[in-house]
């Protein structure tokens, strides 16, 4: 087991740049997430780590070992594929045993370790089944067992849950996290599902256009997104454009079409001059109906959707823009479409982002 460090990685496909100057340090035993919209370069980065793509420039180290030029089969980085890539001409047991056979592990040990691996993914007794006799969730677990059984230097997972239905996805999340943690694996997990990342990750990197936008724990990324892109990609948010009026310590006052808004700067290194462009980010759950607070304005209810655990409102603002508000544990309906309401949000829940 070892950490993974990626230094200044570039990857071009012809003229198209898929990764640009990506650097990462993943510590030993960490469950690290790469998150981004499709085409952002997250899978390319994972495939570079696996050795399935050759980076145009930059280096990759597993612990102290430079693996940049090492072919995939010498890297000890087992991968779980989005399509599972189970070999249809082998049984479940043969699939799982493959990596051990390639490592010339003695026969009786292979048998024992395959049994253990299948037990770990709750598939003991399925070794002689054909791959096509397994359900989607079972196949997913076979793919996981196949990668785990070789005790890899690191485990790489490429959207492993994207082909499963919603219920199974929830179950597998905690299952994968349990297995990774129980075995103390260093794991890199690619997904476009932000909820999956928030729920499972120790740390995560958000990618866009081949670059890392932000790197941090789920809380850091959700609570203090550094850019409008990260704020709107991880969770939902209301973005209001404006110009900086004043900067006092970490507090920024921004002039917006809805009036002056006071919030916290998300990036402590950002020191805007008055007049600089900025964006105000307020998450729907940070807005509430009421009249006390730093952010305080009038609105008209445009629509209301009741979802049981929450109620979601779309509100028309005086400048014709709309804001989203989500009310948790709503009581019986008291506010209807067309009602005049006033909104509040506390200062620490309002983020000011560099535009």
């Amino acid at each position: 087991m070892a950490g993974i460090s990626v230094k200044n990685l570039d990857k071009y496909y012809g003229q198209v740049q898929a990764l640009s100057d990506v650097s990462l340090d993943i510590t030993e035993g960490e469950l690290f997430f790469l998150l981004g919209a499709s085409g952002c370069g997250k899978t390319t980065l994972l495939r570079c780590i696996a050795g399935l793509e050759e980076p145009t420039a930059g280096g990759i180290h597993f612990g102290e070992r430079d693996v940049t030029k090492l072919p995939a089969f010498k890297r000890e980085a087992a991968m779980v594929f989005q399509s599972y890539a189970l070999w249809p001409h082998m049984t479940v047991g043969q699939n799982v045993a493959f990596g051990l056979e390639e490592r010339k592990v003695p026969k009786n040990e292979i048998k024992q370790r395959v049994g253990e691996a299948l037990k770990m993914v709750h598939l003991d007794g399925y070794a002689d089944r054909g791959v096509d006799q397994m359900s989607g969730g079972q196949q997913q677990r076979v793919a996981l067992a196949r990668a785990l059984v070789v005790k890899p230097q690191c485990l790489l997972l490429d959207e492993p849950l994207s082909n499963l239905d919603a219920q199974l996805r929830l179950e597998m999340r905690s299952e994968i996290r349990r297995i990774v943690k129980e075995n103390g694996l260093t794991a890199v997990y690619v997904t476009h599902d932000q909820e999956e990342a928030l729920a499972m990750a120790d740390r995560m990197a958000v990618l866009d256009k081949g670059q890392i936008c932000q790197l941090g724990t789920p809380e850091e990324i959700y609570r203090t997104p550094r850019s409008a892109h990260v704020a709107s990609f991880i969770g939902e948010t209301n973005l209001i454009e404006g110009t900086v009026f004043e900067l006092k310590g970490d507090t920024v006052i921004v002039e917006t079409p809805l009036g002056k808004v006071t919030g916290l700067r998300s990036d402590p290194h950002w020191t805007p001059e008055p007049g600089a462009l900025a964006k105000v980010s307020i998450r729907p759950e940070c807005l509430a109906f009421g009249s006390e607070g730093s952010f305080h304005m009038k609105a008209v209810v445009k629509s209301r959707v009741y979802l049981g655990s929450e109620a979601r409102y779309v509100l028309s603002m005086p400048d014709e823009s709309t804001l989203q508000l989500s009310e948790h544990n709503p009581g019986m309906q008291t506010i209807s479409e067309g009602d005049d309401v006033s909104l509040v949000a506390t200062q620490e829940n309002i983020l000011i982002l560099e535009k």
Partner: protein
Amino acid sequence: MNKTLAYTITALVGTVFAVFFIYPVAMVLKQAFMNDEGFTLSYLAAVFENEIYVEGLWNAFLLGITSTLASLFIAFPLALIGHRYLFPFKKSLSALILIPLVLPPFVGAVGVKHILGVEGSLNALLQSLGMMDPAAPVDWLGDGRFWGVVIMNALHLYPILYMNVAAALSQLDPAMEQAAENLGCPPWKRLLKITLPLCMPGIFAGGAIVFIWSFTELGVPLVFDYTRVAPVQIYDGIKDLSNNPIPYALVAVMLIVSGLIFGISKRILGKSEHGSTPRPKGKASEKPLSRGKSWACTLLFFAVFFISSLPHAGVVLLSLAHGWYGTVFPEALGMANYSEALGHPLVVPSIQNSLLYASMSTLVDVILGLAIAWVIVRSTIWGRTLLDTLVMLPLAVPGLVLAFGYLALSQKGEAFHFLVGDSMNPTLLLIAAYAVRRLPYVVRAAVAGLQQSNPALEEAASSLGASPIRSLRRVSLPLIGASVTAGAILAFAFAMLEVSDSLILAQQAEHYPITKAIYSLLSILGNGPELASALGVWAMVFLAISIIGAVIIGGKKGGLFRM
């Protein structure tokens, strides 16, 4: 993705191709266009000034055109019906009608001669029924036996067009025809205005191969004694090859015509791709027919198979015959010819030789084909499209051309002489010739197999520690084995039946492959044709055993002949 390996394979294959394909072809062109003083067109002019050669070339060209049209006439309706309708035994019949491709036409020609010849079964039947005057029998094979050759070619080669047209039809979005129908276009107009134009790439792709094949066909005209055709004239010209450039000039003309046809068809194919037909969204629905109509389809498919295997049935009958001359059926049947054939000094060695040549060349093809297919499909190196085009070129170059190049290069003092040695043993030359010419089939089969299998399956093996060679052996090969086996069987069958290389390159009796042995037996007076037929049947039996064996082995893995 291992670029070094991909470049190594490309370089290796490129070298093999340069030595065994481009060099011999260039040699032929050199002999045809160079004299001591340099470039000359005088040999070419000599060919076109000689009426006999001009007639031979023209006849060969006509043979090519008519054979292609006749094949299309058989293949297109079959492909269309197979694409559109459901009928009883459709699956097995669709496979059955491909079989004539591996039945040796030149052996079948022997059978046809006995059925349609002046003293053949048909005339005997008509005479016995009183419908023909025995004093004035009809020569069904026609003046110069032109149509006999056309029929044999068409019955042999229509599966190539059938497969191409069927593939083109299955690529067709059913919505295209439905749109025309929706706009009020009646069925027959739909066929002419929508379906046929959209199938053109398939028709041209298959048509070019059929044309080149029949344009340069040597075996069938030889058996029919149809000497006024260029390939036979070339074959006859070998006897005084050493100082006669005329056969080379004739071969060069055939090469140029074949190359032009291949180039034009590629052009047309290339153009049609610009209109990028969208992939079909759903499977074209095959319509069920009324009981009568659907059985009519079944009957049609069976009839085509029956008629195309009739010549070979004639061969079987002839091989069993004891005296078959001017009668409907042989006077008596028996195994005498077989035992006599086995005793003939030509027969057993020729079977051994053919098995050796064909299996070695197939082995070469499979190894090269897999490596090439891997580079084409899985690697990203520059030049893989070039490699793709290069390995397809043997389809455009007639066997005669290559055989001539090899022959010239194997003379004493030339570059390939060491391959044959002073004893002129053609084993290595024949293996090389068979392998180069059939490589396209194996490559295409392997490419198709690789394209269908998910690259993640190989990447998974690689990420679990399997080296490229290991993952090829443990994952890729078992998965694409079926389609590679199919390609290999085709290559093997064609090598067993190969005529032009075999007739030209094997000069001594002890090195004769089956085809040349059959040809030599035919010219023996007395029971020569019967012995030849017996050997032909032996050859077909070997083919059948190897194909059935491969189907059983490959069949377990499923879908061997879904090409």
